[in-house]
């Protein structure tokens, strides 16, 4: 074991992702780093495989005591944990951290943590947030109590993500930008230049308290370089000049890599899907038959080709990704409906279009300007033309497209998007993407892009969430039904579920993939 300690890991990425502040940053790139920089009260188990979805006590000594009908969670903090700046982690820090989530206008403050008592006031007036009665710390006893307005079966997940990281109480209540905030993790950020590189070194104050929650890392130093191109990153790794790239290797190189460097490639399933939301409030997709027709018509196998072949993507025809809580194999829109997609059913599609009476209408597909999205858009355009629509593609820069397609004012009929789960709960897909609560017409923040707001389905989802608090297994059964009900409405084209491709240099060992943190960098060694 000790033989593997030491050395420097060289990571590369085309670009960095802005603020280092774990309460604000909402990117998988930095969340992957926060895994070994910060801790929450609880956290996902830092192991590879399916166990990585389990929640283990982290800064809390044990799993919380839940009382008051699931509305009160009481945590007992571990003793002797220090922040990287040498100060002790106490209940005060925990309370301050929760207040800080609201004070810095954390992106999930209103969606993850709005169930805490006092959160409404904090959202309305962030600056004077106290969460009085919501988060109560007892310094002497070393406990923290969280009170909710209603039971929330997903609370522990929400406490496990970096947005609920515990930071020193003296951390300024504003976006700390590129200045690292000391954490409790195994490593600390030594320097960060968003335009050039990040250097991560061991946290001198760190002593391993739970290998599951926060294992001590192997390498002494991690150097993360930003810049270059994906192609260049592949070359650098192949040439032994870098150890890992954040970005997906270009599809162009995969064939070559899979023969020349098969040992360096790791494929892992992702809790995500690529889908094409259809606007159910705009013609032609305000017509159910038109929506269903398109779902029947698309050749998901061809789409997989665009993304790099079957090893990199699996065709799906439902919302919940495989192996996700609540997932049950089902496929409505295929040649022979059943559990799996087999082939497109063009005849049925044409018939549906005919019946819908939408033939000849204009449809524009709004895509992002990356190769995959553009490719899918072009493919959809072909299919739409085959179905008798007058189709066009509009490509918009990726950073803008995501909010552009959400705003109903932009009258987007069909677009291409992706959704990655924040934590393993079916509601994180179904309720977020197709619930009435996430439909805000006329704003750029309306993640229910299809605009589907079906009273029945919404009620079922609310019930399933509530059920989850008491009987998660039954709830998952319900979610499977909801999944089917949503697909019957056909508000989106499920395209495929992507696979994570990690390309490592030959010297990296002990690759472990966690479904939430992805590659566990601290668990890998280089010697």
């Amino acid at each position, binding site marked *: 074991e000790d033989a593997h300690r030491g050395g420097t890991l060289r990571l590369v990425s085309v670009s960095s992702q802005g603020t280092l502040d774990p309460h604000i940053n909402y990117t998988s790139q930095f969340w992957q780093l926060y895994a070994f920089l910060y801790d929450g009260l609880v956290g996902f188990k830092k192991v590879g495989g399916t166990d990585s979805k389990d929640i283990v006590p982290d800064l809390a000594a044990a799993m919380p005591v839940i009382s008051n009908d699931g509305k009160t969670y009481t945590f007992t903090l571990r003793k002797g944990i220090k922040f990287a700046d040498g100060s002790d982690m106490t209940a005060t820090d925990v309370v301050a951290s929760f207040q800080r989530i609201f004070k810095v206008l954390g992106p999930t403050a209103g969606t993850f943590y709005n169930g805490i008592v006092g959160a409404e006031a904090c959202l309305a007036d962030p600056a004077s947030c106290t969460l009085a009665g919501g988060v109560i710390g007892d310094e002497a006893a070393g406990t923290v109590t969280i009170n909710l307005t209603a039971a929330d079966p997903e609370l522990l997940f929400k406490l496990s993500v970096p947005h609920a990281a515990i930071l020193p109480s003296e951390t300024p209540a504003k976006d700390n930008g590129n200045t690292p905030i000391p954490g409790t993790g195994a490593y600390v950020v030594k320097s960060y230049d968003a335009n050039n590189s990040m250097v991560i070194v061991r946290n001198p104050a760190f002593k391993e308290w739970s290998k599951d929650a926060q294992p001590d890392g192997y390498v002494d130093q991690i150097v993360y370089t930003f810049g270059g191109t994906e*192609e260049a990153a592949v070359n650098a790794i192949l040439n032994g000049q870098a150890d890992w790239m954040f970005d997906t290797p*270009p*599809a*162009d*190189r*995969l*064939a*070559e*890599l*899979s*023969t*020349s460097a*098969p040992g360096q*490639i790791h*494929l892992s399933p992702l809790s995500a899907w690529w889908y094409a939301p259809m606007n159910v409030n705009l013609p032609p997709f305000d017509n159910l038959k038109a929506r269903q027709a398109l779902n029947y018509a698309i*050749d998901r*196998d*061809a*789409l997989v*080709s*665009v993304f*790099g*072949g*079957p*090893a*990199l993507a699996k065709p799906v025809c439902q919302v919940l990704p495989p192996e996700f809580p609540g997932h049950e194999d089902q496929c409505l829109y295929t040649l022979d409906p059943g559990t799996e997609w087999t082939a497109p059913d063009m005849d049925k599609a044409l018939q549906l279009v005919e019946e819908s009476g939408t033939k000849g209408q204009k449809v*524009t597909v709004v*895509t992002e*300007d990356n*190769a995959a999205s*553009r*490719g899918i*858009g*072009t*493919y959809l*355009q*072909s*299919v739409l*033309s085959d179905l008798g629509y007058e189709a*066009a*593609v*509009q*490509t*918009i*820069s990726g950073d*803008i497209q995501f909010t*552009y397609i959400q705003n109903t004012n*932009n009258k987007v009929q069909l677009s291409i998007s992706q959704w990655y789960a924040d934590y393993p709960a079916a509601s994180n897909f179904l309720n977020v993407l197709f619930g009435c609560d996430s439909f805000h017409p006329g704003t750029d923040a309306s993640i229910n892009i299809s605009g589907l707001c079906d009273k029945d389905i919404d009620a079922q989802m609310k019930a399933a969430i509530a059920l989850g608090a008491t009987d998660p297994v039954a709830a998952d059964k319900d979610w499977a039904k909801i999944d089917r009900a949503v697909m019957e409405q056909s508000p989106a084209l499920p395209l495929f579920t992507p696979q994570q*491709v990690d390309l490592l240099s030959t010297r990296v060992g002990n690759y472990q993939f966690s479904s939430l943190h992805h590659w566990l960098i601290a668990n890998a060694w280089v010697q």
Partner: protein
Amino acid sequence: MTREDGDAPDMTPDLIPPSPAASAGGDLPPPAGPWRRALTGLAASPTAVLSGLGILLIVLAMALAPVYAKYVAKTDPFRSGLSAKILIDGKRSPVMVRSTEGLGLGVTPIGPTWGPQYFLGADAQGRDVAARFLYGGQNSLFIAGAATLLCLVCAALVGIVAGYAGGVVDTVLSNLIDMIWAFPVYLLAISLSIVMLGKTFDFGPIHLSSSSLIVPIVIIGLVYVPYVARPVRGRVIAITNSEFVLAARGLGIRPSRILWRHILPNVATTLIVFAPMLMALNIVTESALSFLSVGVQAPNASWGTILQDGQALLYSRPVVSMAPGLAIMVTVMLLNLFGDVLRDILDPKSVRGR
């Protein structure tokens, strides 16, 4: 020569005996005007003739794109060909070849067959690169040409108004030109594209979607306006102050006629001299914008978008970016060669450079 008044004194004959070179006699064929002379000059220059023919050939080849697509390649290069098949050696094989070796990752489009179908291979969408290359060339040339025209018209307008009106109008326009000038061209083009691409415009019955070629034409046409308007303005000022305009004013010619008959035709040379060079510049600009995906929009093609497609296939199918790259190079070179000769003929003392 007959003279009406008899008492007019004899005109002295030219003192120097006439030599054929010095005095072009009246019996010579009527000499050519400036435009004709320019044409004759071009025709006399082998460089101009060859480069002109070359450009014509390229335009012609691109114009034949539909014929090629329909009768030779037998594909529709704007439709996704992901599940297309091709007959090679009597075997039907997919155009998108799934890797079978090693981990079996990746899907590679077939490479050049050098046959009628997929002559240059397929792109990541399984479409025929050769057919797209021709269509792309059509668009590239059309955009560059239309943008050149637009730019010349706008620049002429701005330059003439500023130069002729003078005063406040000139100050305002010149400062505006300076301002746009200080904005790096590519950045200006990119920002204009991003603004325009997110929008659809409706001017009465005319509907302009973002995928229309008009967007890149307008953008490329506009960004170089300052570069042409400035010299045009200078030229207009020079001509307005020139002796022959002064003479025309002295003769009592109306200002409108002075502008129309005396100033405009003389500015025209400046504009014409700019045309081929601007066109060359526009081809490169178009390709750069499309490469940065703010130019021609999918599924439409241009040499720039093919370069962009080719970038994603650079390591497995370099020919996809090689073809448009070389085409751009050759076309731009021919245009520059032609432009050089044209400039030498029309405007030998013009500012050198771009």
